[in-house]
């Protein structure tokens, strides 16, 4: 393949090829290949989902009211978002509107998941791309305490003794030879730039996050009845309300349980304000000051989201994170996004291991086809069907399809939502002012407040320069967590008020009986999943599922090339990033992880024997 230009990138696969397979610390299985130039800068990137997915096909013929329970099992992370998207798709098809209480409870469950997932992703899966755990052993607990008080003055856990205890625990763990969750790192790599004290602070907060998250998920148990697989229901929520009821198992939700929920929301708000957001800002500042502002990829130009968090149910104009599409980095123009329009969302398979009758065209999900056709091929392909050595990106090379918006590749996720809402705010949307405030405060912290406190040079980057980076993607997730918890408190108060006013309805069962359904119906459900915009499209015939398609966030971000040769968001994000040491792909993992990829639902999970460490092959 000769070098070519696309989306502002020049792809050149002439340099030496590095293969990272598997990319670890993600849900599912993915592989990445890049070409480096003589200075070890990435000049071509190929990302592939190496597992097959077929969820859609096993739903055929089943009861649409049961689909949510199946989609909950696709993967281990976004359980609740798939279930919610599924019931919304069915409700849309059948013209069912859920009561206000059900709307608010669903919103709170979705936002709990958002906060939980974002915090867990950052501390458990992503922090290790920024934080050198082993270096934390060299930190001075007293200096760590000072750093903590500077970064987050109101966080109560900041004494030198506290950090010394954590350090001792970590030391015992490392000495025991059982690194466990920390066994997969490139500790000591020069790609890590934080001082030992910042590393110790982050490890400490990792433990704090682990401790809190298990309390937060209990919100799902209260409203969804079960953990870790909460109940959902077409038409509403499967829980009854009786404020004065007793707390017996299976009894309706009472005031005591609602008080518990309120306490958890307060805890989330505090954790975001005192720990999560300050940590990301501090780490972001230190990496920015080290000159590491890579990884923006498509977020600098093209982003999309369906829009979410309606203040008034079924009124898109009241969305608190409104959607749309931005192209070519033009924040002044936001294109409306309609998931029903056959011309807008389309999936292509020219480079995916699936078959279409005419592969020059994309298919809208309602007309979607999932017919597997596994054939690794192309002049540069090396290996066999069962043992891939090198992929050829000019041919089919992934189990992920290529969704496009009017033919454009876009990035999705919290950063995309934040860029869109920031742009909406600049155009005067009053509901987006909180987002603007968060982004502007973050830019001020990263440019001057934190550098000044640490004695580092100040900078003068605009939001438009800071956001489309790997740091910005990680920051977008932290800010969304912060905002989601705040919005959840409003939902909570509205719910309690509504119940006190005598409305305890939680479900609309007018159309529960399939006898009331039309012979044929189709619908779409969308959710702002933690990883980005999620859509399910359903066709119902004679009371049964006729066709079901999910277009998940990681399909958008992890998509292979399309008929025009446009690259997907993962691929774009790696472009032009220099690697300190190609044998240790810290930079690749850092940027790929910043998307919080979930290959389990964009492809299918079944893993061959793999090594714990990401395997790197230099060719």
């Amino acid at each position, binding site marked *: 393949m000769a070098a070519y230009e696309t989306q502002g990138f020049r792809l050149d696969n002439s340099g030496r090829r590095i293969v990272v397979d598997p990319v670890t610390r993600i849900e599912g299985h993915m592989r990445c290949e890049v070409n480096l130039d003589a200075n070890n800068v990435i000049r071509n990137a190929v990302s592939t989902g190496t597992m097959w997915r077929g969820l859609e096909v*096993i*739903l055929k013929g089943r009861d649409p009211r049961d689909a949510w329970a*199946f989609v909950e099992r696709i993967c281990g992370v976004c*359980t609740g978002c798939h279930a919610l998207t599924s019931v919304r798709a069915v409700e849309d098809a059948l013209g069912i509107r859920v009561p206000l209480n059900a709307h608010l409870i669903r919103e709170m469950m979705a936002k709990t998941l958002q906060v939980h997932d974002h915090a867990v992703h950052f501390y458990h899966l992503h922090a290790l791309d920024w934080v050198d755990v082993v270096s934390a052993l060299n930190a001075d607990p007293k200096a760590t305490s000072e750093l903590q008080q500077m970064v987050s003055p109101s966080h109560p856990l900041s004494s030198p003794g506290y950090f010394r205890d954590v350090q001792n625990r970590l030391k015992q763990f490392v000495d025991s030879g059982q690194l*466990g969750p920390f066994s997969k790192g490139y500790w000591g790599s020069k790609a890590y730039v934080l001082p030992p004290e910042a590393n110790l602070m982050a490890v400490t907060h990792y433990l704090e996050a682990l401790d809190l998250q*298990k309390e937060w*998920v209990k919100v799902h148990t209260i409203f969804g009845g079960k953990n870790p697989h909460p*109940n959902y229901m077409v038409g509403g929520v499967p829980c009854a309300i009786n404020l004065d009821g007793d707390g017996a198992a299976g009894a309706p939700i009472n005031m005591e349980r609602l008080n518990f929920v309120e306490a958890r929301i307060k805890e989330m708000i505090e954790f975001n304000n005192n720990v999560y957001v300050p940590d990301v800002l501090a780490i972001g500042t230190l990496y920015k000051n080290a000159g590491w502002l890579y990884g923006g990829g498509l977020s600098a130009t093209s982003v999309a989201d369906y829009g979410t968090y309606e203040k008034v149910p079924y009124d898109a104009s009241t969305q608190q994170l409104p959607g749309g599409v931005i192209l070519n980095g033009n924040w002044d123009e936001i294109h409306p996004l309609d998931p029903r329009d056959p011309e807008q969302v389309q999936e292509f398979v020219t480079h995916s291991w699936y078959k279409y009758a005419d592969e020059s065209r994309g298919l809208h999900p309602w007309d979607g086809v999932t017919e597997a056709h596994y054939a690794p091929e192309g002049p540069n392909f090396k290996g066999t*069907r069962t043992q891939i050595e090198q992929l050829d990106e000019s041919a089919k090379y992934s189990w992920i399809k290529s969704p496009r918006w009017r033919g454009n590749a876009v990035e999705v996720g919290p950063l995309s939502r934040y860029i869109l809402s920031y742009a909406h705010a600049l155009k005067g949307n009053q509901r987006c002012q909180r987002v603007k405030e968060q982004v502007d405060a973050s830019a001020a912290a990263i440019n001057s407040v934190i550098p000044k406190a640490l004695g580092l040079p100040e900078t003068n980057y605009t939001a438009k320069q800071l956001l489309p980076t790997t740091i910005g993607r990680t920051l977008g997730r932290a800010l969304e967590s912060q905002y989601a918890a705040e919005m959840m408190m409003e939902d909570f108060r509205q719910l309690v008020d509504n119940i006190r006013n005598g409305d305890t309805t939680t479900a609309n069962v007018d159309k529960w009986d399939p006898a009331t359904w039309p012979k044929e119906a189709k619908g779409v459900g969308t959710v702002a999943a933690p990883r980005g915009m999620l859509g399910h499209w359903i066709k119902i015939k004679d009371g049964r599922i006729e066709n079901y398609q999910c277009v998940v966030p990681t399909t958008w971000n992890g998509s292979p090339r399309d008929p025009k040769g446009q690259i997907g968001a993962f691929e774009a994000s790696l472009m032009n990033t220099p690697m300190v040491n190609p044998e240790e792909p810290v930079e690749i993992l850092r940027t790929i992880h910043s998307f919080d990829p979930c290959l389990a639902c964009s492809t299918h999970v*079944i893993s061959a024997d793999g090594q714990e460490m990401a395997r790197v092959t230099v060719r």
Partner: protein
Amino acid sequence: MNDSIVVLGIGNLLWADEGFGVRCIEALQQRYEFADHVRLVDGGTQGLYLLQHVQQADALLIFDAIDYGLPPGALRVIRDDEVPRFLGAKKMSLHQTGFQEVLSLAQFTGKFPKHVLLIGCQPEELDDYGGSLRPVVKAAMQTALTLAVQALTQWGAQPREREATLRRGDAVTLDELALAAYEAQRPAEQDACRIGDARFLLAGS
């Protein structure tokens, strides 16, 4: 106070014998009732989300499908310190790596069960998306439950045969996914590709 006992089934029930752990929990609950300090958990593939269940347990019993290189349907019982090693020895699916990590995280946080028992079953077939347990694995469930009930009795779980039928909605595994409905409503083979990933099929044939 009685020790807290957690019985956890893990695996993905959409992948044939991968569902062994979850189906064991479903069956255990249908046939037995336990003392109040015993909790049955359908863990699915939830990985980290299961941490609190591990931390809360003084005694933890796990059902899972594990490849020990034994004949299909063969059961093995693994205890205490051996458990993490076994879960990591040969992983067939993502959740096992995940669960090994959950155990080490529980150790790191200093909240780890005093007793851990893993009842593992050698699967026959995994590459059958939407499929159910193979007969040999389904048959092994009976012995697995007997072994579990023995261990749970020793731990003071007070198992007794269930008298009242389980009410709809009380099942740990959602009614919508209950074994009988799951099997009966499966779409026909010509409608739904069941083969999974061609590479693994080729590798196995």
